[in-house]
């Protein structure tokens, strides 16, 4: 049985890699092949034909599309995705200096959101139909259905402007002490957490309530168990798989949220780097950042899948 499980997991991992490869083809086709002559773009309309030809040669634009893709791919895998067309700096260095900041932001947010969302989601399932459940669910629907930047803007308005608890801008560059760091981190983490918690709470609640419809819960009820015992001792252990799945999927919303939050708070992370690169049409940088985000997304989705495979024996027979 364990062998079967291992094979399934390995299969899922290979599938993730194949998806990532397919995504890289799409990303490179859109950014590298379709827009036309990058050398012309970089030099402008009044470039001499010689300069154009030289730059084309240097950028490898004389080769065919598939050749350029393979070159870019092998370079990226070896940690050298090319040079920024705007600043001329190696893309790897630009990303290397920003990535830790983003990971720190995402890690902080996840560390706060996951326990909070689980507790809220389980409480909602426990007291479903109560005013608490209604209020929390309504709040979650409202947060989930508006764009992330509204939640972030609202958080600034409440916590930084009206209550004056926290500074509105953050930058991890001017951090002198731990307390200082916590303060400059608080707003971005708080806004991001609002979005994630709402998602995760909804999915956790749904996962637990789904279990409550099962036949064994009927039996538990007939035996006269209290609602708390029914949810915590019987439904919850069986919902661990779906909940783990929900957590991993909700964390993928971090990726979308992080873009908005880094821009709104001027946070020196990789998402801000990418948005600036898009505005300046710095293709090598856009490609590299996009691939990092897509890889992170696919990893989370794959983890979510693995959680449900491990937790649900029925999925192992497909």
């Amino acid at each position, binding site marked *: 049985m364990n062998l079967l499980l291992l094979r399934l997991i390995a299969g899922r991992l290979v599938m993730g890699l194949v998806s990532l490869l397919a995504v890289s083809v799409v990303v490179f086709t*859109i950014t590298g092949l379709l827009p036309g002559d990058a050398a012309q773009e970089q030099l402008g309309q009044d470039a001499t034909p010689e300069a154009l030809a030289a730059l084309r040669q240097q950028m490898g634009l004389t080769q065919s599309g598939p050749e350029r893709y393979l070159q870019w791919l092998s370079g990226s895998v070896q940690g050298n995705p090319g040079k920024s067309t705007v600043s001329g700096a190696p893309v790897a260095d630009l990303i290397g200096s920003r990535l830790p900041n983003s990971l720190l932001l995402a890690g902080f947010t996840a560390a706060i959101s996951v326990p909070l969302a689980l507790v809220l989601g389980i409480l909602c399932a426990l007291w479903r139909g109560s005013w608490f459940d209604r209020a929390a669910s309504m709040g979650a629907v409202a947060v989930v259905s508006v*764009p992330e930047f509204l939640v972030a803007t609202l958080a600034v308005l409440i916590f930084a*402007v009206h209550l004056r608890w926290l500074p509105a801008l953050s930058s991890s560059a001017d951090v002198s002490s731990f307390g200082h760091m916590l303060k400059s981190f608080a707003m971005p983490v708080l806004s991001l957490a609002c979005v994630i918690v709402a998602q995760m709470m909804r999915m956790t609640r749904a996962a637990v309530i789904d279990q409550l419809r099962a036949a064994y819960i009927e039996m538990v009820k007939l035996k006269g168990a209290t609602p708390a015992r029914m949810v915590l001792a019987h439904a919850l252990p069986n919902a661990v798989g779906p909940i783990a799945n929900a957590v991993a999927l909700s964390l993928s919303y971090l990726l979308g949220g992080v873009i908005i939050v880094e821009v709104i708070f001027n946070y020196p992370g990789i998402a801000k780097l990418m948005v600036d690169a898009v505005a300046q049409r710095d293709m090598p940088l856009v490609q590299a950042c996009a691939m990092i985000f*897509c890889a992170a997304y696919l990893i989370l989705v794959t983890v979510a*899948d693995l959680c449900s495979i491990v937790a649900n024996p029925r999925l192992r027979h497909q």
Partner: protein
Amino acid sequence: MSTPAAIEPEVASATSAAPAARAVPRLSRWSRSGLLGLVVLAFWFFIAAAGPWLLPHSATDMGAAGVFEAVSFTHPFGTDYLGRDMLSRIMDGARYTIGVALIATLLACAAGTLLGLLAAVNGGWFDAALSRLLDTVVSIPSKMLALVIVAAFGSSVTLLVAMAAIVYTPGCYRIIRSLAVNINAMDYVTVARTRGEGRAYIMVREILPNITGPLLADMGLRFVYVVRLLASLSFLGLGIQPPAADWGSLVRENLGALAMGGASVIAPALAIATLTIAVNLVIDNLPGTAQAARDDH
């Protein structure tokens, strides 16, 4: 390769809605929250359609008033960072936020439905190839795909419409295909086939009428996604370009007003929130669906 259905978890709620007896139910069958959603939605669509003729002030005139003026009788939502009337800016922006999103949603749903029906009726390699291709697009987060397309092609209004349509076609395709595959296996479709009807007839006359309910619900959800995506892009400065402005750009432009109480930030933010929440209310309360039945008691 079967990409997990859970990739876009929100999509699931559209499929779970059982087909309603009528695609658009009578007003009397709507619940109270559903009606509220309908009213707000109708209001915004009216503003988007008639807005340009109703503006109390010019949406671009920055002479008369001061910058970031507070709420007053002449300027119910205050003025923006250049002294323009916020109410007029919002009414003008409705055209972009709602118009662009509506066209993109219709395009995405039309393309997704057509491809989904074709895949279901043809099956075989056509279905397999199309599904794999669109699965790849789905495994790119929508915001990431949007950024990549905007980086490559710029952000004219035409491009934004095309971009949003491309981003959301695969999601619609998957739902329509899975519904259509089931209906394609029904006896009455087999009968039609035996009768010698062509593929186009089966797609349009046999399958399409049986999936209009879920299709409409999915269209509503997708409209919300498109509004959110385009507003987010504009907020990042990569969507609708000035001097034109949708509600996302209005929030971005006036972020400076936050420190001063910020009517000019809150008003466009509220406009987006009421629009998206109204659509969600309508979808969640579509009469005849499982969701509505659950909320009724």
